[in-house]
C-alpha cells in the first residue's frame, strides 16, 4: 500500500489524532500522531489486515530545539510497505506511552532514547539507562547538553 493510502486509512479511523502528514523531502513520509493515542494507533497499524506493520525498524528521538520528537519507522514484511510515525513531545518532562508491548523490538531502542534524550516511555517493561553509566547526569544528545568536566573525579 502506498503511504498516502495508509495515511488516509489512519485519518478515517483516528481523525483528529493524526495531527499532520509530513511528506516534503522526507522519506519515508511521517504521520504525526498525538502522543496519547500512540499505543492504540500502533496496535492498529500492526493488527489491521492490509497494514500489518509487523516490524519496527527504528525508533529514534529527535531534539527539534523547541520540542522533542520520537520517530518510529515501521515496515511490513508481509505487505512490504513502510511509513514513519512521529510524536512531538514538549520540552518539559517529555513522556510518551511505550510501544514495547506492540513491538518487543522497541525496548532497547526506547531505553536508548531515554538514555540519550531523557524521554520517558511510560509502561515500558524495563526502562533503564543502556549506553551510559547508570549514574550519568544529563542526556547527551539534547542540543542544549553541557559537557560535564568530571565524572567521578575522572576528567571527561
Amino acid at each position, binding site marked *: 500500500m502506498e503511504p498516502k493510502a495508509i495515511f488516509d486509512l489512519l485519518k478515517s479511523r483516528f481523525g483528529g489524532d493524526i495531527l499532520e502528514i509530513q511528506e516534503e523531502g522526507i522519506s519515508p513520509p511521517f504521520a504525526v500522531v498525538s502522543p496519547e493515542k500512540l499505543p492504540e494507533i500502533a496496535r492498529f497499524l500492526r493488527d489491521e489486515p492490509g497494514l500489518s506493520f509487523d516490524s519496527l525498524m527504528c525508533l529514534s528521538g529527535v531534539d527539534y530545539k523547541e520540542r522533542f520528537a520520537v520517530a518510529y519507522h515501521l515496515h511490513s514484511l508481509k505487505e512490504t510497505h513502510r511509513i514513519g510515525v512521529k510524536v512531538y513531545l514538549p520540552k518539559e518532562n517529555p513522556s510518551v506511552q511505550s510501544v514495547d508491548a506492540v513491538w518487543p523490538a522497541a525496548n532497547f531502542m526506547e531505553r536508548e532514547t531515554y538514555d540519550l534524550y531523557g524521554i520517558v516511555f511510560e509502561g515500558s517493561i524495563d526502562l533503564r539507562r543502556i549506553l551510559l553509566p547508570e549514574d550519568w547526569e544529563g542526556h547527551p544528545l539534547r542540543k542544549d547538553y553541557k*559537557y560535564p*568536566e568530571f565524572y567521578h573525579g575522572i*576528567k*571527561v
Partner: protein
Amino acid sequence: MGLVAYLADIWEAVATTAKGMRITAGYGIDPRETITQEYPEERREPSERFRGFLFNDIQRCTSCTMCIRACPIDCITLESIRGADKKLKLVSYDINIGRCMYCGLCVEVCPPKSLTHSSGYEMASTERGELILHFVHEDPEEIKARVAKQVAEAAAKAEAEKKAAESEKPADESARASGEAKTAGPPAGTAGEEKKEAPAPAFAARNPGTDAERKPPPPAPAPEGNGNAPGGEGEKTE
C-alpha cells in the same frame, strides 16, 4: 533410541571426527600452507595506496589550512606567517599521530598535494609527545623573527624603491613596518582564504588552545575538551 540409531550416532561421530582430522592433518603435513611471515625479518611491501603516517612536504605546502578543515578529529595544527613575497610561510606544522586515524581526508583535499601518506607504520613509543610529528624543524620564534626581518627589509626596500620612483599610494607602509605581515594587497598563492588569515599567526583554526600553549612558559595543560593541541612545550621532543 533404537540400537541402529544408537550405533549410527556413534558412527557419525567417528566419521565426522575422522573427516576433520584428515583436513587438519593435511594442513599439518603440507609445508606450503604455512602463511606466517616472520615479521621483523620479513616484511610485506605496503601497497601503493597504503595510508601510513602522514608526511608534509613543507617546501610545497601553501599553508592553506584545507587539511585542518578536512580533518574530522583535529589532529593537525599549523601556524603560518605572511612572508615578504606575500606568500604564507609555515612556522610550524604538527600532526598528532597518536590521534590521527589515517582516514586520508586531508590528503585528498590538499591543493598542492604536499601532504601525502608515507608507507611507514612502525612507531611504537612510550611517550605521547613522541607521537607528534613536527615537519618544520626550526624554532618557530626564529622563523618568525627571520620572516619579520625579511618583511621589514622588503618593506624598506619597497619604500626605497617607491621613494625612488616617487610612486603614489603610501597607504599601508606603516602597517608593513610593524613586521607582522598584514596583507592588504592581492592574495598570492591560495585563493579566497586570505581575508581570515590576515593577522600574524595566520592560522585560523578551531583550536584556540594551540597558540596559548606555544608560549615559552608552559601553561597548565589545556582541558581535554579542546585538547586538540599536541600537548604543551613539555612534551615537545625536538
